[in-house]
């Protein structure tokens, strides 16, 4: 790896992978196409679970379009996934943790929140860092892994779905070759080649409003908080977003005049920044670029042996940092399923739950992000009037502040009850601090760092023994005799264990279901359901 300097950042360049035996078509269990947030997270996840994986990326570095900061807000569930994958500490030492957001009109705060309230996780509610750093740390993690075959500078050019495998055609600077895979996961982003080759409809739409991102270095004594101005004279009564990032750089996002389609220049950016920051602040423009909000959504995230994750499958308006964070959760949802199906421990049917759960999550994210878009950029004069009057109320009366919507930030998905999720299950388990039997202090993810076992957490000491390689049974409580101690009892409460006897946790730390009567039979039935091995006559199908 060579580090080179770009826009004042030091960024790695990876050596292009040269296939050793181009003429021979090799077969692989999983090929992940695209090394962005989704693909890198998935490849790391698979390797951590003991699954061999090939990752293709057309580029030889991280990030895109120079050093665009792109996805900068990493929400708690993503950070917990990164902790499980062993890169959270690196991200945390680079980035800026925060929990407080404020929305302003001119200099008046009309809404604020503190997401740290009620936080049980070892991870902060949010952490801001330029996307290419996260990709870099994931790539480094992957490079050190013997099960990961990372192929930089290798581009997918075509795909063929066969009966029992998928053939993909790859191009690199020295030629082209084909590989076969049991499963292919397309993480090729917004303009995915693979998805386009299959001509699957995505129903793309582009918003009318325009924004301009400026990544700017300047020093500021203000606290690390997310500030969003709905209106400020500094931007001709339009909106401005302001987020701290790593290396003393800020993301300043200017809402542009929707009617004006002139291409912004460096001078435009500097003039806007000068007005916003005042005459005395020295600043250095690191990167800039305009954007408009886009949406698209695939009908099905599974097409035979090909799966779609991240921006290839779904794109939302960018409000609430749902894009990158949902791609990371796609990867988290899919990794254990592929690993278990490939090792013969779960039926292929389990893969269907990926589409069920993650497409529903994408529909939810689209809805939530579209509401913020409506608030920030009202589409008609009447809707603008509603927004203005709600802001007027918020300035006078506290109740109306909750209506001010400059982005509802990404949260862990909740999966509805389904053929795979038992009643009351579906929510994500916070990465709370726990005390292990040997007295060590750890966190929930420590129980899930390798392999893909489920964990059944039972109240106090359970006599239950279930002979199943897929399951660990651990008791949780406050007494000295339990396997895991929850000194405050807050995790027990959050897990629903004050009302239920046991909770089954999946390898992605989502709850598969609760049990009130814990026995061999009930545990086996719930595990079978979560693995897609349950009885076929499920009522909702």
């Amino acid at each position, binding site marked *: 790896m060579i580090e080179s300097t770009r826009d004042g950042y030091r960024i790695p360049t990876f050596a292009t992978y040269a296939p050793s035996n181009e003429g021979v078509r090799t077969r692989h269990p999983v090929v992940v196409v695209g090394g962005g947030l989704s693909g890198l997270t998935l490849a790391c996840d698979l390797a951590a679970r003991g699954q061999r994986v090939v990752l293709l990326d057309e580029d030889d570095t991280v990030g895109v379009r120079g050093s665009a900061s792109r996805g900068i807000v990493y929400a708690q569930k993503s950070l917990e996934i990164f902790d499980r994958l062993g890169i959270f500490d690196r991200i945390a030492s680079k980035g800026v943790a925060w929990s407080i957001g404020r929305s302003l009109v001119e200099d008046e705060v009309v809404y604020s929140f503190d997401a740290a309230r009620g936080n049980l996780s070892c991870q902060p509610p949010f952490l801001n860092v330029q996307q290419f750093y996260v990709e870099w740390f994931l790539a480094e993690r992957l490079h050190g892994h013997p099960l990961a075959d990372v192929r930089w500078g290798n581009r997918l050019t075509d795909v063929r779905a066969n009966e029992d495998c998928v053939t993909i055609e790859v191009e690199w600077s020295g030629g082209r070759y084909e590989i076969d895979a049991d499963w292919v996961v397309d993480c090729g982003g917004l303009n995915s080649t693979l998805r386009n080759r299959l001509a699957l409809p995505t129903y793309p739409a582009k918003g009318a409003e325009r924004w301009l991102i400026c990544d700017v270095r300047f020093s500021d004594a203000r606290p690390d908080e997310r500030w969003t101005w709905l209106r400020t004279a500094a931007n001709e009564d339009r909106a401005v977003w302001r987020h701290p990032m790593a290396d003393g750089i800020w993301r300043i996002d200017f809402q542009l005049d929707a009617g004006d389609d002139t291409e912004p220049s460096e001078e435009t950016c500097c003039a806007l920044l000068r007005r916003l920051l005042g005459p005395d602040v020295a600043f250095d423009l690191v990167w800039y670029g305009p954007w408009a909000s886009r949406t698209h959504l695939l009908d099905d995230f599974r097409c035979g042996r090909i799966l779609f994750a991240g921006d290839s499958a779904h794109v939302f308006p960018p409000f609430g940092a749902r894009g990158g964070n949902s791609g990371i959760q796609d990867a988290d949802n899919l990794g254990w399923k592929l690993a278990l199906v490939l090792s013969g421990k779960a039926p292929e049917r389990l893969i269907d739950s990926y589409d069920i759960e993650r497409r529903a999550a994408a529909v939810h994210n689209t809805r939530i992000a579209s509401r913020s878009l409506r608030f920030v950029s009202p589409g008609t004069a*009447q809707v603008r*009037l*509603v927004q*203005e*009057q*709600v802001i*007027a*109320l918020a300035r006078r*009366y506290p*109740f*109306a502040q909750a*209506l001010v919507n400059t982005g509802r930030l990404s949260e862990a998905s909740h999966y509805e009850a389904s053929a795979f999720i038992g009643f009351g299950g579906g929510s994500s388990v916070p990465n709370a601090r726990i005390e292990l039997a040997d007295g060590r202090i750890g966190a929930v993810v420590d129980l899930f760092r390798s392999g893909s076992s489920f964990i059944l957490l039972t109240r106090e000491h359970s006599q239950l023994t279930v002979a199943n390689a897929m399951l660990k049974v651990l008791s949780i409580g406050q007494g000295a005799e339990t396997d895991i101690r929850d000194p405050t009892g807050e995790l027990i409460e959050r897990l629903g264990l004050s009302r239920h006897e046991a909770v089954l946790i999946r390898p992605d730390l989502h709850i598969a279901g609760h049990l009130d009567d814990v026995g061999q039979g009930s545990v086996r039935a719930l595990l079978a359901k979560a693995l897609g091995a349950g009885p076929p006559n499920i009522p909702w199908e």
Partner: protein
Amino acid sequence: MNVETIAIPAPDDFYEAFCREHEALTPEESAAFNIRLIFLLANQVADQNVLHACLDAAGAHGV
């Protein structure tokens, strides 16, 4: 949602007070006033089913 019986106390008083507020307003100000009033009232109603039923009832299909 109650659309059968009047529950507004002293309904003529309210009608008068409401119109008085509007008499001094331009159409634009009047629309703005109504939006503020509706959100204030919605916060008093505090019942999701009632609010959605009222939205439906006030819409073109309702009258």
